């Protein structure tokens, strides 16, 4: 994929992970040597055995029995060694994979949100899951086949040359032909496979779009058109697939053909050598076994090499993730924020997600303990960014954010976040029971506390109506709940243990307004004496805030109470009045 250099460092790193199991690795290698030697010795013994059975009345049963006994011992040794080797390899591979995966995941927990927000989830998941799986397959194959394959080739060569150099030469000269043929076919079919996967990608794209939005397709009567578009690409795919599959499937017959040439060559030259008295029939039969054994690892190794390369590429992708710069270390003398009073200050804060695009340039805000601050403004004005900075999901580029007079970079992230309670628009729930989800931030909560929180969030009644009440299992991302119900659970999660400061980012956007009114009351109680930040686009929900910040393009353009802002007749007044444009036009 990349340069040889990265490949080499990747190999080094993989070896470092493996070195933890060096005892198993050495054991496995020793066992491989044992297996190969015994496997190679068996055909020689078989050949000798055959030499003991020359013809009618010319069979030496005593010698034959002794040789066969030797063979029996050898195969028992081989079998046992092979089995132990398999166990070792298995263990090494899966342990290494687990180590790498755990390392990757732990690193993930320590990555800044900047990384997580800017990389598609699918990409990260495929690195931690699919890539590591690929890597493990490659590693296992490499262990089981690569090393023993090379040993077999070397061993066979030594055995063959020590018996008869001429015939050995025949084998050595013809065998590489199969490699040449295989790589020739691979090269030729590469473009065919590329075309196939390109067309397949196109088809998958169409399928994704049309099937995922099938309801829209049907609503607009687009079915026939979709089918005819599908048919065109499908036909094209059929053509490309046929070519790719057919030509690539020639590899096997071709290499087998080369093998049969080797076999015929050995047979021919061997038989002549026997006639000339240079060889016995039994040795010829061992040679024939070798000819088979020798070509097999060649075919296997060419497969293993591509697999290994693939595994290395995958490993490199995983390492790339592990190498991502983690969160900045907390200073050693970082303070622990205990029960914050709740004064928050943003002092000349500048921040942007992308360096070239200024978002917040000079943001100033002073909040006294217990104040309720509402933030409004059009989409993309930076409302959620302010929240990101308050929670220190992102660090400011310039200026600083202080809580109780201390720069939040000088306190532990943990203690800062412990002082905030947060409800977001995206209603994330864990796969697990409702009870576990409500108690997420406070796993030791008693049942009474959980039910109390659920009641406060107006979630109790719908939870009770579910099949298993509080023990109902929520599927991944809350699939079996409505958006509104999910939001209620998120609210209950915060209600369970209220920290000194609150952040509500569109916390009620999916809840119908009648329920919302009821929750507002709970919120009002919750916010009493707590510094709160409320982001909302329904203006009715924020009228009671102590101060409303109106943001546009990353900066505060107006601030004040609801009445003050209306009196100002600025942007806020315009936004607010636009809700009632009908009243105005209808008279």
């Amino acid at each position, binding site marked *: 994929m990349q340069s040889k250099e990265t490949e080499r460092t990747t190999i080094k790193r993989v070896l470092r992970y493996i070195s933890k199991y060096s005892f198993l690795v050495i054991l496995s290698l020793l066992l491989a040597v044992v297996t190969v030697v015994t496997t190679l010795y068996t055909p020689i013994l*078989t050949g000798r055995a055959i030499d003991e059975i020359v013809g009618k009345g010319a069979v030496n049963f005593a010698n034959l029995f002794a040789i066969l006994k030797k063979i029996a011992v050898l195969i028992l040794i081989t079998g046992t060694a092979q089995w132990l080797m398999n166990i070792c390899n298995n263990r090494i591979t899966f342990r290494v994979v687990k180590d790498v995966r755990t390392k990757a995941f732990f690193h993930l927990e320590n990555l800044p949100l900047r990384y997580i927000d800017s990389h598609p989830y699918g990409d990260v998941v495929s690195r931690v899951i699919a890539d590591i799986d690929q890597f493990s397959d490659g590693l296992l194959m490499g262990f089981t086949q690569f090393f023993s394959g090379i040993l077999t080739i070397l061993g066979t060569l030594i055995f063959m040359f020590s018996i008869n150099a001429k015939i050995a030469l025949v084998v050595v000269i013809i065998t590489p032909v199969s490699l040449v043929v295989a790589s020739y076919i691979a090269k030729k079919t590469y473009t065919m496979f590329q075309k196939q996967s390109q067309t397949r990608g196109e088809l998958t794209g169409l399928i994704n779009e049309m*099937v995922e939005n099938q309801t829209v397709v049907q609503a607009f*009567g687009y079915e026939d058109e979709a089918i005819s578009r599908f048919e065109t690409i499908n036909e094209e795919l059929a053509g490309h697939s046929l070519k790719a599959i057919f030509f690539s499937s020639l590899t096997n017959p071709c290499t087998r053909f080369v093998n*049969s040439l080797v076999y*015929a060559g050995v047979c021919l030259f061997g*038989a002549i050598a026997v006639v000339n008295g240079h060889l016995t029939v039994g040795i010829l039969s061992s040679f*024939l076994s070798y000819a088979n054994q020798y070509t097999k690892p060649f075919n296997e190794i060419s497969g293993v090499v591509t697999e290994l390369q693939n595994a290395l590429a995958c490993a490199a992708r995983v390492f790339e993730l592990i190498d991502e710069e983690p969160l900045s270390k907390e200073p050693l003398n970082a303070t622990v924020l205990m029960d914050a009073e709740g004064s928050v200050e943003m002092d000349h804060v500048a921040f942007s997600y992308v360096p070239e695009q200024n978002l917040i340039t000079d943001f100033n805000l002073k909040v006294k303990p217990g104040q309720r601050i509402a933030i409004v403004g059009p989409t*993309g004005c930076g409302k959620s960014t302010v929240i990101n900075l308050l929670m220190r999901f992102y660090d400011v580029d310039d200026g600083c954010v202080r809580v109780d007079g201390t720069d939040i970079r000088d306190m532990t992230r943990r203690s800062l976040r412990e002082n905030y309670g947060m409800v977001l628009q995206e209603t994330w729930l864990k796969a697990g029971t409702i009870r576990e989800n409500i108690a997420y931030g406070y796993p030791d909560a008693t049942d009474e506390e959980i039910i109390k929180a659920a009641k406060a969030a107006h979630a109790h009644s719908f939870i009770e109506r579910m099949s298993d009440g509080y023990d109902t299992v929520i599927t991944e991302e809350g699939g079996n709940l409505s958006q509104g119900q999910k939001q209620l659970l998120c609210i209950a999660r915060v209600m369970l243990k209220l920290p000194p400061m609150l952040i509500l980012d569109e916390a009620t956007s999916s809840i119908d307004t*009648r329920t919302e009114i009821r929750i507002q009351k709970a919120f009002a109680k919750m916010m009493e004496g707590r510094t709160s930040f409320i982001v909302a686009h329904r203006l009715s929900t924020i009228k009671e805030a102590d101060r409303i910040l109106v943001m546009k393009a990353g900066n505060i353009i107006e601030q004040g109470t609801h009445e003050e802002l209306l009196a100002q007749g600025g942007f806020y007044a315009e936004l607010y009045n636009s809700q009632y444009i009908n009243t105005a036009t209808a008279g």
Partner: protein
Amino acid sequence: MNMFSYLKAYKKESILGPLFKLLEASIDLIVPLVVAAIIDVGVANNDRGYIFRMGGLMIALGVIGLALAAIAQYFAAKAATGYATAVRLDLFRKINQLSYNELDRIGTSTLITRITSDINQVQSGLNLGLRLLLRSPFIVFGSMIMAFHVNRAAAMIFVVVIPALAIVVYGVMFITMPYYKKIQQKLDLVTLKVRENLVGVRVIRAFNRQEEEKKQFDEASTDLVRTQVFAGRISGIMNPLTYVIINAGLIAVVWIGGKEVDTGIISQGEVIALVNYMSQILVELVKLANLIVSISKAMACAGRIRGILETKTSIKREAIPVPEPVDESVKVAFEQVSFTYGKAKKESLLGIDFRAKPGQTIGVIGGTGSGKSSLVNLIPRFYDVTSGAVLVDGVNVKDYPLDALRAKVGIVPQRAVLFAGTIRENMQWGKKDATDEEIQEALATAQAKEFVDQMEDGLDTKILQGGKNLSGGQRQRLTIARALVRKPEILILDDSASALDFATDARLRLALRDMAKNLNDKMTVFLVSQRASTIRDADQILVLDDGALVGVGTHKELLKSCEVYREICLSQLTKEEVERDAK
């Protein structure tokens, strides 16, 4: 339905493929006999000419084998790809016929897996099957028969060894199969953990739960490894054990062969042939085991595909004549309509009864889950009513051909979906032959003209898949324009202005009203919303609560008569406004 029926079109290929493969296999079986002949005749008689002739024969056999194999591969590839192509097309057709009910039940993500990776699995399984399914048993049993041909006593060893090998190979497979299923499940769990930690990263960090998450991941991943190592240990037994069995057989063959040679029944070369046959079996058995794994995978996939193909469509597109309107004074009427989703226990709509006149704007309001969307989805017959009837122009919607009914309706779904292609192409979904003028007009009404005009390529601007290059509000306005292009008789906006700010929303409604007026009351509009301000000017407002219609009337009437409606309004408007409106 039989999944093999798709092979009928490739009958020739699916017979010839395996046939040529068998011919090739027969050659593999002949080779050991040639070797035996070289030794017994050529070497024994010092006949170099014979040895060269036989060597030449072996090479010739190799060439023929290559040719036969190539032909077999071609037929197999042709049948497999042809089969997959046909199944894929049929499956896609089927998906386009499924009604909303089936789509809800099955879920689109499964459908996508089935039409992509499942079919690929079937294709490669079939390809492999056509090539090897007959060949491997043929070689195994062929070797045994050839052994009998050489010597009866030695062949009896084959009769013992083959079943023993079969028991080991399939026994191990049988034992490990459930473990591999378990491994897949455990891997899914690990995947879930990773995804959760990405999607929920803010909550996890806000609640400082990283350490617990790490612990849980470690548990899941340790559990996975444990199962993997265990399954690996069992399947790791297979190779050594088969090796031992085959070689034990070999020892027996040599011993018994030796006895037979001693009594002059067979020759030394024939012993070598027997040894060769024994080795061939080992190679083929391993191939066969791999083959069975991939074929059983393919069968499972084929079963899943069949499941979809056999799904009955509850609402079919049938070629029935378009009925004449019966009563044009009522555009849409619901008569005691009740509706239940799939196998849900509770009705989503119960006894709904109302009439919408041509040109009217109907507001539909209610809390989340009150049945608003369900109600409008019944008009274009996305779902069938459980009882009662929905009439359009006085005719039951079930009596229309689906295409004709849906052509009357322009719908703007909640989720603003656009398709890859230009803006123009997306607009033409509404009307195939829409001119640029018609499109511009629709864009203007939908409040989308301004931003489309600002785009460099105007109507030719490319929309990426899923409309990723547009904001939520822009997407929503384009989906509204798409529905307007066809100037539908019935326009349905299903809470489809939620991403618009209040000012744009209000302008949109004014423009819609103008459009309806210009169309001489030919357009009846259904406005579904949670916002009271959106529907307050409608000619008729339907108030839904928990699936029941609890109020019908104008804003003013309902404020007086409908408690639920008043509560909704009070939650969104100021008290003074509500009181003023009620007067």
